[in-house]
């Protein structure tokens, strides 16, 4: 990353002016250091670490509230042991994986195709960028509300369009067969513009020389894509894909309004399962065990995503 100050290799620099790396810092150095770091550190320790420790503790207990006071009854690993038999959680995990894979794949393919097309468009850039950022800035819950209306059986725009094309309208969100697919389509609508912007930024930062060489050699459009663009873009694509996947795993807001996990368990996703068990049923202990497990899965996914990044960026 950062070139060391003595990297130039000058003996003079090393001998005279460079500060030795390992020297005990003085007080007037330590004070500003800690003073500037402390707010963030305290915030993260107090609200990022402590609650998780507390959650871990809770997960080994059954909690009952009475008058603002909690009674913790230790149960050992009982909550964790019963997790694998939770049918709702199983459905949630399965659906979340399907949701994440298809939604992110759809966003990436569409986003990349559009980025390829638009990488040479120079006019109106500000305008379409503003336009494509819009969905990212709309609250997830409002996305849910918008599409709940759009997909409404009686008057929704989607059914109007479908009927205009001569097909029969469907109850998209109320039908077991189309509910999850509808939620995936909504997510693709929500995040494709974002993938597009990221991949476009990647495309625009590619070196131009290989393309000029290819042009001289008379390469076709397809060859250019296959042998230059794709290999050069592969790291960016992989990294974006991996990280979007982890983020898609968090889906909650849209599902909450669109289908609330239904019909049946057709659109049950892990975050929603957790919400139901923890808050709706008020089972803090069991919910905590589930939360810890879900976090663990997310951390595993993240480690995988990071190893993708490391492998795709050889020092």
């Amino acid at each position, binding site marked *: 990353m950062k070139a060391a100050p003595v990297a130039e290799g000058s003996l003079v620099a090393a001998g005279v002016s460079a500060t030795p790396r390992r020297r005990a810092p003085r007080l007037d150095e330590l004070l500003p250091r800690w003073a500037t770091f402390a707010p963030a550190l305290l915030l993260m320790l107090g609200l990022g670490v402590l609650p998780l420790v507390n959650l871990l503790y809770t997960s080994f207990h059954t909690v009952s509230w009475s008058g603002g006071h909690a009674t913790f009854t230790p149960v050992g690993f009982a909550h964790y042991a019963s997790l694998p038999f939770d049918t709702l959680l199983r459905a949630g995990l399965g659906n979340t994986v399907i949701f994440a894979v298809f939604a992110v794949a759809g966003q990436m393919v569409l986003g990349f195709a559009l980025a390829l097309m638009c990488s040479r*468009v120079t006019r109106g850039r500000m305008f379409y960028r503003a336009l494509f950022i819009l969905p990212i800035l709309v609250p*997830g819950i409002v996305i849910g509300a918008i599409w709940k209306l759009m997909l409404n059986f009686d008057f929704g725009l989607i059914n109007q369009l479908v009927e205009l094309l001569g097909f029969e309208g469907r109850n998209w969100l109320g039908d077991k067969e189309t509910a999850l697919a509808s939620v995936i389509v909504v997510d693709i609508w929500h995040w494709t513009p974002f993938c597009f912007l990221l991949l476009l930024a990647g495309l625009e930062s590619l070196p131009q020389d290989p393309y000029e060489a290819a042009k001289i050699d008379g390469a076709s459009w397809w060859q250019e894509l296959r042998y230059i663009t794709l290999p050069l873009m592969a790291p960016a694509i992989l990294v974006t894909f991996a990280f979007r996947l*982890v983020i898609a795993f968090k889906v909650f807001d849209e599902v909450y309004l669109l289908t609330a996990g239904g019909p049946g368990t057709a659109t049950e996703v892990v975050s929603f399962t957790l919400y139901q068990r923890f808050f709706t049923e008020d089972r803090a202990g069991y919910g905590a065990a589930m939360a810890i497990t879900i976090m663990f899965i997310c951390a595993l996914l993240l480690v995988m995503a990071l190893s993708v990044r490391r492998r795709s960026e050889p020092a």
Partner: protein
Amino acid sequence: MKRLSHRLGLYAALAAMGFVVLVPIVWVVTAGFRTQISLLTGELLFTPVLANFTEVLFSKTSDFLVNYRNSLIVGLASTLLCLTAATLAAWSLHRLRWPGWVLHVFLGWALVFHMMPPVALASAWYVMAREVGLDNSFAGLILAHAVLNLPMALWLMGVFVREVPIELEEAARIDGASTLVLLRRIILPMIAPGLAATAILTFVFSWNEFAVALTLTMKQTATVPVAIAKFAQDYEIRYTQMAAAAALSILPALVLLLIGQRFIVRGLTQGAIK
């Protein structure tokens, strides 16, 4: 000739995409100006009415204005808190010769934290907030939103802080500037655009946040997303009012987008992969 048709194709694709992005939003905003009957019959031309908006904003049964105020309070306070902490820490970590492991552990943990599902974090905060009596208070939600956005703010401010030429800082030091003077006179003016980008994003994400707000608030402290979710569930058939509420809730993001578009693009694309 081929170039021209090629170019036209590009613009057509862009326009189609823009159309797909825009239609649902425009459709909902217009639905907010319709009467229920007009929406149900699906007529294309309609005389716009303001009834839905006045109903959502000023009716006795609606708390929307209160929710709006709550969202503003939480958004502004958490943004201020988050940005102060993140900017100072980013500068500290990148410029004050911390041992390498401190930087890596802290930023690494921030990444892990950022990837956690908000509902899981909400459950953790809920247990704590209830134990110390901070549930149903602004303080709990403000702190939660501040720490939720802290990782993103840390990376973004890290990028912007590192863009300040180190020679400038050294020169100021040699001239005898204290840390406070250095921060105020040199760093702050240099990172102001980056700070604006991060502030806009932090505010918008706090404004949009639902899962944590849902679990840490009650009726008096509910934010806009919580109110919309409640509205959609309680009055499932008041479609046009739901549309009006949705339109009103996008307003701040829209205004910020118009003001700070350039900043937002930069912030979003830089913060995404880092």
